[in-house]
């Protein structure tokens, strides 16, 4: 039988332009830098060979960033790139996945995309136990018109500190403007403290322009064990090789109705309410108040300033990063993932309990302050273990849950809120009539009117 003639083919591979100038548009500058720190953490995790038990497994590992309008550098002591991985490390995309290590990097694009986003040229130096080398991204190589893909690599003298250094001596114009701006620098530091807060808590250290960053993690009001009072909703389970934890509670006392009214007129507070999602100790979503985390769905009310005290997190931990519900940018969720939907169900349960609490005490918020004073703020990840210690097992096994404990007001004579609006000059007239002066608070005027009428009504016996 005659051999079949191969048909014509056309080139279906990538172009340089796609990687160096298109892909970079998918990610914000700040997130690109967070990707670089993620790589440092992944390096430390590999060094630890997955031994991440204990309070501070990352102690001794650091990443140090320097940025200014003149250039950028990130250096770490997280082991560098071993000789066996050099080729893969500089490919655009990962040929195979490193299972058994709880990283979140899967796609093998973060470091390269960050370099393309930030600089006009770059040097990557690796100092590992089995050798040291430097790879250079030249201006020519980074030219979108240049179809040359080979990168120059050379051996360099090894150093005692094993790690990776990325040096970007010339920045893109728009990046230089941001790196020279202290507001951008402050925002970046805040983002690092939030995104890597749980890793910093576990011993990893990040310096940005010589400032050692503090962790910013979720703190909730909570009593221990079965005590009566404010206690968050807490759930944990293992599903398909992923450990899931959901905790929802209050990080501040209830929002008073006057505060809600005030917020409608002008911004008062930075919003810190909402649900955060953490994957392998990295923050993927911060203080979300959308349907992604269950607000406005499954019987939960949509977010409203009344719920300004409610916060929580969903934590996913696994040795198999493919199972994490995250997108390629590592800063967003793949909300369609089954594991995420599973966790979201419990988040909805927690939100419902907390929202119901705010509704029950509506108009009497001040009366709940004693409960909040009694239940001190605690670090939600390290100091609240309610499901693990006191939770009831889930039907079918695989997890434990402890519902929130939130006091309810006595039902015999519940408080009701009276709310209405009147013209300013009318309120002033009544205020002068009642108090002899124009008092600042319309609420005070309304309350005095009611109290006087109540007294009269009682006196007249009607």
């Amino acid at each position: 039988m005659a051999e079949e003639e191969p048909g014509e083919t056309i080139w279906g591979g990538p172009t340089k332009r796609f990687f160096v100038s298109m892909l970079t548009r998918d990610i914000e500058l700040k997130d690109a830098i967070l990707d670089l720190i993620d790589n440092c953490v992944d390096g430390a995790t590999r060094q630890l060979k997955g031994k991440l038990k204990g309070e501070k497994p990352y102690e001794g590992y650091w990443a140090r960033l320097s940025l200014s309008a003149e250039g950028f550098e990130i250096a770490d002591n997280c082991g560098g790139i071993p000789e066996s991985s050099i080729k893969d490390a500089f490919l655009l995309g990962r040929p195979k996945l490193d299972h058994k290590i709880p990283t979140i990097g899967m796609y093998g694009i973060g470091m390269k995309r960050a370099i393309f986003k930030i600089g006009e040229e770059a040097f990557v130096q690796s100092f590992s136990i089995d050798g040291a080398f430097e790879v250079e991204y030249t201006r020519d190589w980074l030219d979108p018109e240049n179809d040359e893909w080979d990168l120059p690599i050379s051996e360099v003298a090894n150093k005692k500190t094993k790690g990776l250094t990325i040096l970007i001596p010339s920045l893109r114009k728009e990046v230089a403007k941001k790196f020279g701006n202290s507001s951008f620098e402050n925002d970046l530091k805040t983002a690092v403290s939030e995104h890597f807060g749980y890793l910093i808590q576990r011993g990893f250290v990040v310096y940005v322009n010589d400032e050692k960053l503090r962790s910013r993690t979720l703190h909730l009001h909570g009593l221990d064990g079965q005590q009566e009072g404010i206690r968050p909703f807490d759930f944990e389970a293992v599903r398909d090789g992923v450990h899931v934890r959901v905790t929802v509670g209050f990080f501040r006392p209830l929002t008073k109705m006057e505060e809600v009214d005030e917020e409608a007129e002008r911004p008062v507070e930075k919003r810190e309410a909402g649900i955060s999602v953490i994957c392998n100790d990295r923050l993927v979503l911060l203080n979300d108040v959308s349907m992604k985390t269950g607000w406005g769905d499954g019987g939960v009310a949509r977010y409203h300033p009344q719920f300004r005290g409610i916060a929580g997190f969903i934590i996913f931990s696994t040795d198999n990063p493919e199972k994490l519900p995250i997108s390629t940018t590592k800063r967003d969720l793949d909300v369609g993932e089954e594991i995420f939907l599973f966790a979201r169900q419990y988040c909805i349960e927690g939100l419902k309990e907390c929202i119901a609490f705010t509704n029950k005490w509506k108009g009497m918020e001040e009366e709940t302050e004693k409960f909040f004073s009694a239940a001190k703020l605690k670090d939600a990840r390290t100091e609240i273990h309610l499901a693990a210690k006191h939770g009831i097992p889930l039907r079918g096994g695989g997890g434990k849950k402890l519902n929130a404990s939130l006091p309810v007001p006595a039902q015999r004579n519940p408080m009701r809120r009276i709310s209405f609006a009147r013209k300013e000059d009318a309120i002033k007239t009544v205020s002068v009539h009642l108090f002899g002066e124009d008092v600042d608070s319309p609420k005070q005027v309304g309350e005095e009117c009611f109290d006087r009428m109540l007294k009269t009504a009682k006196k007249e016996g009607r």
Partner: protein
Amino acid sequence: MSADDIPYQLRPNKFIDRQIFLEAMSRLLPVRGPESYIYVSMGGRHLMDHHAAYYTLGIQALYSFDKDANEVARQKFNRPTGKAICEAFSSSELAGRLDEIMSRFRSRQNLIVWLDYTSADRRSQFQESKQTLVKLKHGDIFRVTLNADIRTFGAKGEWRDKAVGPGEYRIAKLRSQIGEFVPTIFERMRDDEFPATLSQCLKLLVESAQLEMNGLTVLPILLTTYSDGTPMLTATFAIADPVSEQRFPPEKFKRWKFASRNWEDIRSISSPVLSLREQYRLDQNIHRGAQRMLAGLKFEPAVGEEASLQVLQSYKDYHRYYPNFRPIED
């Protein structure tokens, strides 16, 4: 009673602060001329600032706003000229109205905008300031007064059970209000550090605005803190195009005694409330040191010698601006 009701002889430091501002303007305006400027501020019911801008600086294009219609009616009654425009809206609307205000004074190219806040609604004030800044152009001047009173973070002892100390509690509260503008390095704020902390927050606000200002720079030219009971911080900025041929602020402005060189360079105004007789006695010794001035008084104008020397030094520094009007029986 609002601060507006308190006569200036009882709040000399506010008065001095405004006089220093007017002197700063007199040194900045000649670059483009007072005819180029529109003066925009809340003004208060008596439009004192507008009177000063008109009579002292020669600015004829005057604009005031207040959310209270009755206050605006009173401003109209008190306006220095019939051309001054007084309108009713809140400070949150100002940024959105600047183009319209410019169009009302067609021949003017520049703005002096003063947001003179008294309350501690910091989040809205910072946002409004940024929104206003990003609308400004080369040669404009922006000024903001902020409440710098630590008592706005709650009563003494409120920090217990909530933070490790009062300083940490204040910073946490400030972060909950304007977190994006508070430098990450700040861990606590001591009793006397609020004006300096707010100045650093303003620095981040300005830098954040600059990212949206197409290459324009915002330079702090006068930073003052004063207290007539409530500590305040006032910051004045010049908006400049670094590539413009017309240098703004002019090079020689830096030589002015009170010009701020950086964000830490804050002038503290803490002159005492003085009777005319006391003022005359101090003026006789003004060329001498604070110690000699105090000896000349034979009493302490503040609580204790150290505080008295401090207020007398402040009087010595700013006596040129001290209010001279008094009730006749003083």
